[in-house]
């Protein structure tokens, strides 16, 4: 009987493995193999035009340490993330709390907020490039002129370019986070909130002491996804600023693209990609451990 059970278990396991085999093959071919290749290329002098010019050990990484442009792009990536992540989290949580309390008209607001998520990133960036035109030609500057403000040349002035890119990116991805938070807000245990109210908790206390801790797992999960997304931004930068002005919006992924496909330096681009991979991995590990600590009721 025991042998029969074991055979059945093995048969079922085999069936299971066969069913996940296509997915695993896809992961192996499209994710793992390219990932390993990037690691290998990072130790080679590889050029898109000239091919592989040999193993160079840590040369690409040594070049990276002395590359001012790499550190500029690293700084820009951090600035971009620091702009996008808090703004996105605060706005999406505020909107979710408002929309979660199902009042009239929220269905329309929900749809409007979610629309940018299903809009093509390319179309979104092109529209925002038009909106952020400098001088009198830009619609945003035109509106600002009505209240007596002379708008900057958004995409061609240091500081303002990053601001414009951050605004565009936050508005593009807000809807998805609002949706996740709304799910969490709607599933808040009503008995706990009710108990708080009976104990005389004011609205701010109810939010800070009860709702926020209960929402923490969702907040941290959304934060991880938003941080990773912000580290991988490409289309917005490519179409709105092309990394300018003065490289002030050139982020790591865009720098990798430039090195690989504009200057054809695949080996060096791979080294930068490996560094980005390690940064994202460390950030994810840190946030994951924070999630365990901050979510007091999670196992």
């Amino acid at each position, binding site marked *: 009987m025991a042998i029969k059970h074991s055979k059945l278990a093995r048969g079922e396991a085999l*069936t299971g493995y066969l069913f996940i*085999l296509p997915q695993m*093959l896809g992961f192996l071919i499209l994710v793992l193999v390219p990932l390993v290749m990037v690691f290998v290329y990072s130790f080679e002098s590889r050029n*898109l*035009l000239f091919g592989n010019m040999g193993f160079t050990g840590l040369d690409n990484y040594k070049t990276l340490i002395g590359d001012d442009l790499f550190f500029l792009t690293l700084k820009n990536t951090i600035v971009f993330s620091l702009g996008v992540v808090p703004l996105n989290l605060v706005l999406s949580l505020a909107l979710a709390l408002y929309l979660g309390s199902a009042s009239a008209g929220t269905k329309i607001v929900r749809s409007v907020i979610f629309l940018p998520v299903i809009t093509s990133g390319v179309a979104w960036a092109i529209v925002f490039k038009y909106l952020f035109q400098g*001088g009198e030609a*830009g619609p945003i500057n035109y509106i600002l002129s009505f209240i007596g403000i002379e708008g900057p*040349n958004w995409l061609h002035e240091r500081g303002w370019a990053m601001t414009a890119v951050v605004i565009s990116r936050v508005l593009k991805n807000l809807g998805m986070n609002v949706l996740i938070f709304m799910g969490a807000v709607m599933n808040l245990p009503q008995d706990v909130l009710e108990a708080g109210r009976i104990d005389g908790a004011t609205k701010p206390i109810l939010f800070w002491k009860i709702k926020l801790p209960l929402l923490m797992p969702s907040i941290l999960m959304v934060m991880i996804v938003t941080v990773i997304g912000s580290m991988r931004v490409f289309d917005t930068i490519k179409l709105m600023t092309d990394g300018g002005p003065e490289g002030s919006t050139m982020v790591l992924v865009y720098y990798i693209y430039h090195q690989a496909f504009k*200057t*054809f330096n695949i080996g060096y681009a791979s080294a930068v990609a490996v560094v980005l991979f390690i940064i994202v991995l460390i950030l994810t590990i840190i946030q994951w451990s924070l999630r365990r600590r901050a979510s007091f009721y999670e196992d």
Partner: protein
Amino acid sequence: MRFFRKVTCALLLLALVAFPVMAQGGAEAKAAPTGPVSIKIATWTSNPDQIALLNSFVDEFAAKEGIEIDAQFESIEFGEYNTKLSLELQGSEAPDVFWVLETSAPAFIQSGLLAPLDEALAEYNPDDFSAKAMELWQSNGTTYAVPFSTSPFFILYNADLFAEAGIPTPEELVAEGNWNWDTFRQSSKAIKDATGVWGYQTVDGGGYDVRILHNLCPIIRSYGGDAWTSDGEILINTPESVAAVQLFHDMVYDDGSVVPPGDQSNFFAGAAAMTAAQVSRVSNLADADFAWGVAPMPAGPMGDVPIIGQAGIGAFSKGDNVEIAKKLVAYMTNESCVARMAGIWPPARKTVLESEDFLTSQPLLTADQMSVAVASSIETGRVLPSHVMYPQIEVESRIVWDRLWTPNADVQSVLDAVAECYAKYIN
């Protein structure tokens, strides 16, 4: 039930193993050519008339060789041309024949991706090509691509806006012998002041970024400067270059007469009075609702120094049909084909350039306009600077050039920084 499950599992496994094998088999079957020869041609034009013209050359070539060719034209957007082309050349979708940008010619030649063409060209009087025009496309006496376009930059202007401002047109200033960068600047400002329309739009609106040298080199060279020379001497921060760039900077920020960075106003839509362009852009004016004209680029202290933009065509050295591709490139640049392309892409063949037909080859331009703005500049003009490390130079220097596009920029210090950037790769 168990039997059914086992059969399902076995079929799944079989399918997973068989699929790649069948795909491989398919690839092998594809490798054995039967029927027409498939030739892929990569260009950065998507103009259907221009593609049709190129396709007619392929048909003629196929008839001459007695073979059947299935030509596929791939139009890649100009800004992404090198990126996509270089990727394709490393993969299985590589074009057999492709256009080459002048700025990347040295890198492509050195990489070995271009097949030598001299043997194929021998059939079509190669001595007819202007030696000066061929310099960029040859290395150690071997020709790796043929410049199908040797096209000087000139000024296109909106005659209605000049009339509205009550000032002489560039063509009238040329006739007076008074067409120089100072009168160009005055005209641009006068139009902006009188009509509110921008006086000048840079080349394709890209003069502050992707076409920065196309925009500045005509002024810089006519002032006696340059970006760098073929000997590796960097001249971008010489007093002559600084004076030229200062003039353009003043036009943008002091006069406010040039379409500024970030503004998408377009000459062809009537939103600017002048722009720098080449013959291939003239077709955009076929349906223009304003009167327009052409004039050569203005002269500077060193006189008239025409700038020529070149584009080459070459054969992929590692393609399946490399021999046919080489012959096709040679055919497409023979005297007959070049003469038919001349109205779009001015040629490097002397016999065509010197012919009467060339002056009437662009239906939207008069013979006089072709003579003054195009023909006279081709023999005396110079191509933009190039270098085997041009892609790196372009990417890195762009960041430094950006510092120039603020009202209070110190032109000398920005150009010193650009020179420093150039020196990293050129010296």
